[in-house]
């Protein structure tokens, strides 16, 4: 994640309560990197979130528990095509690994 984006995430996470991150990442690697950044801190130790474990709950828009909360026509228009063309199982498996790694 870019340095400016990290700074923006840090700012809003500190300003608000009940913050949840919702990802639209296209593969397992990017999913894990972004999830780690908002859970445990910047894994590259380069940005404002280096060493800053925000511990935010993180989900992917393709996850069934998220998808079922979105109106069908909205999901169809915004995400369904990408879900069909990407390797959803690998994306969600990557996210699970980060969650399990983040559990104390």
């Amino acid at each position: 994640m870019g340095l400016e984006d990290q700074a923006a995430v840090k700012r809003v996470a500190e300003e608000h309560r009940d913050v949840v991150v919702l990802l639209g990442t296209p593969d397992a690697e990017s999913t894990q990197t972004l999830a780690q950044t908002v859970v445990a801190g910047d894994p590259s130790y380069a940005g404002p979130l280096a060493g800053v474990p925000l511990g935010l709950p993180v989900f992917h828009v393709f996850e069934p528990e998220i998808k079922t909360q979105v109106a069908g026509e909205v999901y169809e228009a915004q995400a369904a095509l990408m879900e069909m063309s990407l390797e959803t199982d690998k994306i969600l498996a990557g996210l699970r690994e980060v969650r399990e790694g983040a559990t104390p």
Partner: protein
Amino acid sequence: MDLRGKKVIALGEPDGVPGPAVAECAKSAGADVILTLTACYV
């Protein structure tokens, strides 16, 4: 996770679901989107 009433950071990617599209999904689920980003993963 029930998204209703939650403050959502919509973090999309151009090769996946872009930030604004993630934000639309979050809003549809009743969340309050506080930040929308379309990150380029490097």
